[in-house]
């Protein structure tokens, strides 16, 4: 069902946890739908120096969170904005069709966290001006 990469990131998820004094926090999804993703960012000079996640959800939700955090850790905000759900899924060697929404969730959780950072810090992120996570109610 799942690729080895998915199973690896599910079994040994990278960057699980919280950041106490996070610069941005994003949470998407809801318990009713069976998945919630919460992302914590530490940002210094436009660079994501630390990132953590907490996820309530299925195997691919956890693996997607783990992979997404890995992909943008140490990257600039601009690079992080370019992360698509497809890139997350591909990095995991694919997800079953019914699970693609998990990778969407990961993309949106990151964008939410970045938007939160933008609002808190006053750093304007043009691309997120109208951003609203879609995966809240599916």
């Amino acid at each position: 069902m799942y690729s080895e990469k998915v199973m690896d990131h599910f079994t040994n998820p990278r960057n699980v946890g919280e950041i106490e004094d996070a610069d941005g926090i994003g949470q998407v999804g809801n318990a009713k739908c069976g998945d919630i993703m919460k992302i914590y960012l530490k940002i210094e000079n436009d660079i994501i120096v630390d990132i953590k996640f907490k996820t309530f959800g299925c195997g691919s939700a956890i693996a997607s969170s783990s992979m997404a955090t890995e992909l943008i850790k140490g990257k600039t905000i601009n690079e992080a904005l370019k992360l698509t759900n497809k890139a997350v899924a591909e990095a995991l060697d694919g997800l079953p069709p019914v699970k693609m929404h998990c990778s969407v969730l990961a993309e949106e959780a990151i964008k939410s966290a970045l938007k939160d950072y933008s609002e808190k810090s006053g750093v304007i992120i043009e691309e997120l001006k109208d951003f609203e996570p879609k995966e809240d109610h599916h």
Partner: protein
Amino acid sequence: MKDVYMDNAATTQVKKEVVESMIPYFTENYGNPSSIYKKGRNSKKALDESRDLVARTLGATSREIYFTSGGSESDNWAIKGVAFGNKDKGNHIITTKIEHHAVLHTCEYLERNGFNVTYLDVDKYGMINLDDLKNAINDNTILITIMYANNEVGTIQPIKEIGKIAKENNIYFHTDAVQVIGNIEIDVDELGVDLLSLSAHKFYGPKGIGALYIRKGVKLHPYIHGGAQERNRRAGTENVALIVGLAKALELAYEDLESHNKYLIRLRDRLINGIMDRISNVKLNGHIEKRLPGNVNISIEFIEGEALLLSLDMAGIAASSGSACTSGSLDPSHVLLAMGLPHEIAHGSLRLSLGDFNSEEEVDYVIENLTKIVQRLRDMSPLYENVKGDN
């Protein structure tokens, strides 16, 4: 690695004696039971003896037993067969919200084809209310179809009382007894059921073979048209080997029903108690007493079912969940929702169903591992974090 199979409500291992009983009907006695010659008569004899055994076990006569390809076909046949065969009398059917999909989707199909269906509510234990049933009956009601015991939460319905109500109102009564056969003594007359579905792979028989009990005189359409097999009511060359296997499995199941039940109940209670003792924020779903002997269904807050199943699988434990993700759909179990569980709790449900091949040691192994896994997943869960904060 450990290999602990605790999904006996999904399917069971075929018993050795059952496998052995089937093999000759592949290799030697392969005749078509409709044939006149010796090889055909041998098959016919095996068929007749199997049918007799099933009939005896259910308190029925042999002419009331029809073999099918499994529980789903039996359910489809019973419901559509009665519906289409009694259109002249009425177009209303009563069932419950917690039926197996083989019943629910069949009823929905009938709704698209001119029938009205009432789906009875259940209480938080998964029990229907007999007054609801009585109130639902109207002049057009031709069939009541209510499952004997639920496959997810194990709740056992008051079938005898339902049978009485059906009889008083002159309405056919079908029960999906797929989860019950091999666990409860059955007598169709005492229960007052007119049609009853069963499936061999739930009682250590093979998959792909089942039966439908049809009380003498019940009017229903055949479902598979063709040859004269099954008294002209279910065409197709008979699956002789698997029918022999079904009968053998049934025989074995009812040979020591009591010790089977005692054993399963002991394991089940040890498992429930172990989980309750070790894991917080856990709830047992289903009825406490009116419950299948092997069924454990619990909701574990703050985590999601599929993640749980994957983790259990990695520990060599086979279990199932009522969560979205296992079935490819996004909705959690319709059974748990009908019992009033909120979506988020239903997502974290786990079914461990015990069988004859499970041991006490396995139960302890599951408790041990489940405790660790739940902790690990909760540590990852943003919902649990909030709770900890609340404390």
